[in-house]
């Protein structure tokens, strides 16, 4: 087990800088997820930790030792690739044993270790198969087996579930999580799926355009997103954003939205208010909003409503009787409204959010 420290890491391809000096610290035994939109530099960062990419600037240390110039195999890191990269000409057992074979481990010991990993992952019956004869989920498990036989200090995963169907993804998510709980190996996991990040991570690192936007536990990010980007990225369905400004202690937004806030009255700039879909209540009927779409998912129902230019998504518990075209009123849970500076996109801290909800029509 190990602690991974990333300090001021920069990556340039020629003159193109794709990671702009990021720092983060992954504690011993922690499960940290790097999340962000495509092209933001997650894989690049992960590959620099693995040693597959040269580090242009900054340092990466594992357990206090700077590893910038340490060969990948000497970093004691195992990596699970997005496409698994299982050697097609080797059986499952050979795939898992490959690193042990290279390290010169004896036959018996190798067999024990492979057998052990296979048992943990439920691969015992597949040991003699070739990767081409396995399903996606099985390949995924072999890729993990190949990583765990080495008993590394750090696990790296690069979007390991993106090639699986939705159901299998949920299952593998749980398996990876329980594997981590069992092995307690420091894990850095890359994904662009925020649900994966929310459900699996001890801490999430949100990246955008080669920079870290915020680091925190899933619920921290959910409850107190540092900026508009994180607010919009974390949570599903996405947070609703309403542009507007303060007038005395009332926020007036587009679509005729108003809500009380004790935001520093001195704040004069343009604002963006954010509200999660489940913090929006829909009135009975009659009101300025028109129901556009009703999407029942069983336990809850997603309702899209519109007023003027403003479209809001509301998540309603249970089932609803709204019909598209119907007009409804909208109530925000004012304790749950987030405010962002429209110019800097940064969060504005509330002084106090214990106002209680006030409804408006």
């Amino acid at each position, binding site marked *: 087990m190990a602690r991974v420290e990333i300090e001021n890491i920069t990556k340039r391809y020629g003159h193109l800088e794709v990671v702009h000096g990021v720092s983060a610290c992954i504690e011993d035994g922690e499960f940290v997820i790097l999340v962000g939109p495509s092209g933001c530099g997650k894989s690049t960062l992960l590959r620099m930790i*693995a040693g597959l990419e040269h580090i242009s600037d900054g340092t990466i240390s594992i357990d206090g030792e700077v590893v910038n110039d340490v060969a*990948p*195999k000497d970093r004691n890191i195992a*990596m699970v*690739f997005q496409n698994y*990269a299982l*050697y*097609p000409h080797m059986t499952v057992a050979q795939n898992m044993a490959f690193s042990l074979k*290279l390290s010169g481990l004896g036959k018996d010991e190798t067999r024990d270790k492979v057998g052990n990993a296979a048992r943990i992952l439920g691969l015992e019956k597949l040991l003699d198969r070739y990767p081409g004869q396995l399903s996606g989920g099985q390949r995924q498990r072999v890729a993990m087996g*190949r990583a765990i036989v080495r008993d590394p200090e750090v696990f790296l995963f690069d979007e390991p579930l993106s090639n699986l169907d939705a159901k299998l993804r949920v299952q593998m998510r749980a398996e990876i999580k329980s594997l981590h709980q069992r092995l307690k190996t420091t894990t850095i996991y890359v994904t662009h799926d925020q649900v994966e990040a929310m459900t699996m991570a001890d801490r999430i690192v949100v990246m955008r355009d080669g920079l870290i936007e915020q680091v925190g536990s899933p619920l921290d990010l959910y409850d107190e997103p540092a900026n508009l980007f994180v607010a919009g990225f974390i949570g599903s369905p996405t947070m609703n954003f309403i542009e507007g400004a303060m007038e005395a202690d009332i926020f007036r937004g587009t679509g005729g939205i108003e809500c009380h806030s004790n935001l520093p009255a001195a704040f004069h700039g343009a604002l963006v208010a954010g509200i999660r879909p489940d913090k929006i209540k829909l009135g009975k009927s009659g009101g300025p909003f028109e129901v556009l779409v009703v999407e029942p998912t069983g336990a809850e129902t997603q309702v899209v409503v519109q007023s003027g230019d403003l479209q809001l998504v509301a998540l309603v518990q249970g089932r609803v009787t709204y019909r598209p075209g119907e007009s409804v009123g909208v109530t925000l849970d004012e304790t749950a409204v987030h405010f962002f500076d429209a110019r800097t996109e940064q969060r504005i801290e509330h002084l106090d959010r214990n106002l209680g909800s006030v409804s408006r029509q």
Partner: protein
Amino acid sequence: MSTSVRPKTKFRHSRLSARNREWIAGYLFVLPDALGLLVFLGLPMLLSLVLGLYDVDGFGAYRFVGMANYTKMMRDPLFWQSAKVTALYALMLVPLLYVCGLSLALLVQKTNRFNGVIRSMFFAPHMVSLIVVALVWQFLVVDKIGVLSRLTPALGLGGISFLGDPDYALFTVVAVSVWFLMGYYMLIFLGGLQDIPAMYYEAATMDGAGPIAKFWYITLPLLKPTSFFVIMISMVAAVAGSQAFDIIWVMTGGGPANSTSVLIVYIYQQAFSFGAFGYAAAMASILVISLMAMTGLMFLLTRGGRFSYE
């Protein structure tokens, strides 16, 4: 009386399913080539098989002799000598081309300007007429005058007669053949190397493999289809290739003392120097049949170069 109201006219144009049409289109595309092969290769092969049963005199008179040409072959020491030389030539050429082609490909695999130039250099001999190549080499190694022949005594190797000594001549033509052909095999290997996804090398890096381990455990096994292809075509090239013939014919003409007389050279001599077309045709048939048997066997043993897991 039918109640079916399927609008028949609407689908008339597609009586052939899309899949069948694709299939037919595919065959139409290969038809010209297939016809060419049939007319210019299949037919002559069949004819030479038939011709092998005849005795042809210099004036174009044909006499059916049955298996006489074949029994003559069995008793002809020069035939056996040529068969032996052919086998030796192939046994040296095939592995050498494999090793040299692959080594060159590995050497210039990384794409950069420098390697681009080197790649062209190794392929350059193919831009020149093979006859010229053979003549240039002959000039380089010919006794007394050749540059290399003069160089060897200076290096203390004694006066090696590269083409004049039956002990060396075969090695010399093998060396020139390798030199000439390896650029071509380098290109084939480059293509094969390019087909191996980089992720396997990255996974191997993480698994702790160095360059040598990567070569043995990743490159070589994943190169199997290419290796199969290379061994197949280099075998054919060695036994029946026009390039092998050109090089040997120009440089030694099969000599000295028949030491470089591969079968194609001997067949050529029988046909065009001695007018023994029937005998030559019979030998050519044997050559083709044994080559087919060998490649067929190899195809079966290696499942056509496919991976065992496919």
